[in-house]
């Protein structure tokens, strides 16, 4: 369960977040939707504690991300945007390194690494060094690395970037499986169809503020648009008007 309450963040003069609030409950998929530069990544970065908000509170399972970052990080698995791997380590070693840093013991590490490799279907290249991997292979390994310790809350920043159709589908299946396990999944995207197909709740961000949030039907109803894309544009225009 992730709760974000009125967070603000500025980088010098640029006001990246101007009061973002939303909830991402367990057992549901929450999509953060917005145009480029809307503040999606900044919001997620605050949640996985690499950035501190200037104002406002965010909690993971009730743990404050600012005052107890370490405990908050223990409850999440994060896939940052454009996450890089260690090119001299094999895919398996990359995943095992994260498992070890998450505090799993030696025997558990091997089991967990094997099972996540099976789940994400990366057996074929698991023992190759990651240098020269394709974007899709890299994303899968990075995803496996983020999920290896079975986190309750999963934060994915544009996970489908650079994935082909097959990989996107298997990622979608994985997200739905996580949801069925009762996890909280929060992911960002700028692709409308993806969000519409997967998310129980949608939070549209523009200009550092939440334009509108709710289920897809909710949003269609409140903007008076039948098409979700039109609703998206309408919501963004609402924010930019003030």
């Amino acid at each position, binding site marked *: 369960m992730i709760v974000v309450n009125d967070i603000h963040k500025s980088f010098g003069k640029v006001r990246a977040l101007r009061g973002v609030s939303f909830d991402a409950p367990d057992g549901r998929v929450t999509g953060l939707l917005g145009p480029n530069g809307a503040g999606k990544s900044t919001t997620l970065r605050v949640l996985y504690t*690499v950035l501190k908000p200037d104002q406002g509170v965010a909690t993971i399972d009730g743990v404050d991300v600012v005052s107890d970052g370490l405990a908050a990080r223990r409850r999440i698995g994060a896939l*940052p945007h454009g996450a890089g791997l260690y090119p001299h*380590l094999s895919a398996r070693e990359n995943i095992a390194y994260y498992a070890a840093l998450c505090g799993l013991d030696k025997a558990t590490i091997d089991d967990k690494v094997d099972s996540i490799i099976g789940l994400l279907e990366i057996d074929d290249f698991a023992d190759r060094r990651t240098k020269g991997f394709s974007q899709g292979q890299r994303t899968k390994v990075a995803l496996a690395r983020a999920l290896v310790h079975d986190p309750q809350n999963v934060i994915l920043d544009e996970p489908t970037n650079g994935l082909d159709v097959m990989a996107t589908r298997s990622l979608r299946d994985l997200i739905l499986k996580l949801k069925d396990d009762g996890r909280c999944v929060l992911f960002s995207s700028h692709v409308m169809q993806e969000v519409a197909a997967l998310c129980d709740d949608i939070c549209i961000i523009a200009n550092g503020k939440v334009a509108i949030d709710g289920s897809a039907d909710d949003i269609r109803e409140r903007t008076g648009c039948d098409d979700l894309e039109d609703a998206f544009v309408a919501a963004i225009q609402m924010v930019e008007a003030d």
Partner: protein
Amino acid sequence: MRTLLTVFSKEFVDNFRDRRTLATALLMGPLLGPVLFTFIINLSIERSLSDADSAMQLPVIGAEHAPNLMRFLESRNIELVDGPADRDAALDAVKTGALDIVVLIPVEFGEQLREGSPARVELISDQANTEADRDARRARNAMRAYNQQLAALRLVGRGVSPIIMQAVTVDEVDVSTPSGRAAILLGMMSYFFIFALLMGGMYLAIDSTAGERERGSLEPLLSLPVTRDQLMLGKIAAACTFMAMSLMLSLWSFFFALKFMPLEQLGMTPNFGPLVVISAFFILAPFILVGAAVMTLVASFTKSYKEAQTWLSIVLIAPTMPILIVSILNVRSQIEFMFIPSLSQHLILVDMVKNEPLNLLHIAISVTSTLAIGAILTWLCARLYRREGLLG
């Protein structure tokens, strides 16, 4: 502690597999110094030997006017050859570098000699040309010796002892030992050790900050349930290990390189046996922490791998500065120098190579102050690693 170990072993394996890191850490650093040294020393020995023994060619104009002088020069292993046609041609030849030196004997030489007035000989050379200067000095010395011989004969001819020409004689007593003389030449070798030591950890230091950031692996790493201090310390520990290996290799490669330097011919016997190699390692080891922390600190301010490399090449030169200043001023070990990293290690190492008794107080101060500075710098690194701007 377990996290630290995990980070350490990952960094160690990762860098061990990186050919570039391995080549600079374990090949270039340790081998550059000894190879360069062997080369320079062999070259300088060759030159100093050729000075005395080899025959030298001396172009002469007007040799027929001074047959005795010519015979005297030939007896000094100087081979006489015909010079250019005239004085102007000789000046031109020396100016353009076609000839190094030319001796010109004027027609009136014999007459002046007979009269007992100073007989003039011209030595044409380019003093800016160091190579030619050696030959010029040799020709000048030979002619000076001829002058003294002739003057002494004249005094004897007038019934005066030539001894009266020597009012004061200076006897030089050199108290330097063969090991001491070696220290002059080998004084710079401590820099090569420090250089090798820094090279050993350079790529690791870059990798842990600028490299991880550029690759995009830093952000996911920071989202893990570990503290940034643990990550930083694990990375610094891995860098230190590589640096220690590089230093050890460098000391041993120097030990073997010394066997290929004919130093005895220069009257030097450096005290650099296996025991000195091992003690030198422990003297230099505290500097490893300072080096690792400084390089990490500098690299964490940079925006990219390339920029970090540029800045770190400056860091590689920095430790030479105190050594250079002290070498120029030619000061001996003093207690206050022992507080300065790199300088204190250099001075102790020089004493060791000179085979002088070691000052234990100096060693104690050097080790503790260098370690303390290293600890402060490491703490600073950890502080920097905690800031938000780290992600760039």
